[in-house]
């Protein structure tokens, strides 16, 4: 069993799982039916991608593992998503900023991942790109609308960007498993995506009449399994049924 490969996939798939879960909280509570449907749709896409990744992990693990044991039955420290995606839905501004800051990264990652030597990962990336292109367009459009909308929306979205900015640097961190996979031509070297990421994000913020924050200190930990205090609560809901009724089929 290739543990590095599994850890590498967690680093990608857990982002989709946890962000999909966060977006799922909003279903039925959006600012309009249209945005409600769109956010639900993004959640669906992300969880669909998660299933593909975890079916692959389950195959690598063997021993009766399946996509649900992988998704639901790990300990908090074993989830490898970045801190950004577990941040709460404070308001629509925070939700859409979290989405935007992740989408721009996600798209760049998948564009590289489709060239992976691992055929399965390349195929999942290829299939997901179309969806993530839409996500990126959706969240970027909202950044522009809110930035250049009313004074209130401008201030609110700027606050969200300032608050969530500290979580962007972690997107470009590498774990040992990442490095091993890069060496094998399977993993993407995310450090190479960093400059373009900030360029793209800044240019959209500029178009949205928003300031790109300039801060020196960033947060990290998720990729090593050290999460924010939010994570335990996310997992409490995510794992509720599987933990309460173990070993059952649903």
């Amino acid at each position: 069993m290739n543990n590095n490969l599994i850890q590498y996939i967690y680093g990608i798939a857990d982002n989709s799982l946890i962000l999909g879960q966060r977006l799922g909280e909003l279903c039925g509570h959006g600012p309009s039916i249209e945005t409600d449907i769109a956010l639900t749709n993004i959640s669906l896409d992300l969880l669909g991608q998660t299933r593909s990744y975890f079916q692959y992990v389950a195959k690598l693990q063997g021993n009766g593992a399946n996509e649900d044991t992988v998704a639901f039955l790990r300990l908090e420290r074993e989830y490898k998503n970045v801190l950004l995606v577990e941040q709460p839905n404070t308001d629509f501004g925070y939700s859409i900023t979290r989405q935007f800051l992740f989408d721009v990264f996600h798209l760049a990652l998948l564009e590289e991942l489709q060239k992976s030597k691992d055929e399965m990962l390349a195929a999942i990336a290829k299939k997901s790109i179309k969806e993530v292109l839409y996500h990126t367009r959706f969240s970027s459009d909202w950044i522009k609308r809110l930035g250049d909308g009313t004074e209130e929306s401008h201030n609110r979205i700027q606050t969200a960007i300032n608050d969530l900015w500290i979580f962007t640097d972690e997107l470009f961190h590498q774990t040992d498993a990442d490095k091993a996979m890069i060496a094998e031509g399977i993993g993407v070297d995310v450090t190479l995506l960093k400059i373009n990421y900030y360029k793209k994000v800044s240019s959209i913020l500029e178009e949205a009449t928003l300031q790109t924050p300039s801060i020196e200190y960033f947060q990290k930990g998720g990729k090593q399994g050290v999460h924010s205090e939010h994570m335990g609560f996310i997992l409490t809901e995510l794992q509720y049924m599987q933990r309460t009724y173990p070993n059952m089929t649903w």
Partner: protein
Amino acid sequence: MSEKEVKSLEEIFEARIARDEKIEPKEWMPEKYRKTHIRQISQHAHSEVVGMLPEGNWITRAPSLRRKVALLAKIQDEGGHGLYLYSAAETLGISRDELIEQLHSGEAKYSSIFNYPAVTWADMGTVGWLVDGAAIMNQVALMGTSYGPYARAMVRICKEESFHQRQGYEILLTLCNGTPEQKEMAQDSINRWWWPSLMMFGPRDADSPNTEQSVKWKLKRKTNDELRQAFVDQTVPQANILGLTIPDSKLKWNEERKHYDFGDIDWNEFWQVVKGHGPCNKQRIDARVKAHKDGKWVRDAAMAFAEKQENKEVKLAI
């Protein structure tokens, strides 16, 4: 227009409906027809949107990824139905904002069933099987209703609803083929949802006003009691396949009538919930009002942005 002229228009109008012609938005229609349709279509739209809440409650806790994705897709469909129906209501000369305001103020109603709490995962199965099942009984008949936009909306909605119903039934089938705890969860769920589902068809025919007019306009193609009977007849054999017991000691096949006989609905409970005092009436409306209020700055920003863009285009054109 003189009274005589209106009378003649009305006669032509009723004759068209009798010939099974569809009435389209820009055509002449009696004021009462317009108002009745706004009420019914918007009530239907509100039901879809409020109906997202009890199920939305289970998205984060769905027991498997496959179920989570299917539940999200189902609720997304319901949002789509809501949009579709609000648009159909708008063709009658009322805005979505006004309709939403009526929902929030309590002036407009939505299906009472959504005022019951969804407390276990089995409820996601039962809501699909019984609640969507009961809704379909009504909606299939409405595919032939006289108002064109509503009839067409029903065609599309019925397709998706019957998929939802099968999906709900399949959730329960899985539980019933599972462990004793799972089967118990399913039985408990049917115990709680059976009677409220029968209440979805509304008061007894004897207590239901306006039926005659609605039948004429094909807004009602079967009476409440007829639909309720058809639902019971259809559902009992399905419960038998699941191995679940319907919580009605009077339920029995009547060979003479070729229908199931069933017990009395608790009409006190029915009216309590309809009048706004069910277990979740307040919670549901509060959730809708909060989403709308919290979303105001977002909708305002989108409008302001769109206006700015339009002005830019105008300037460029000049």
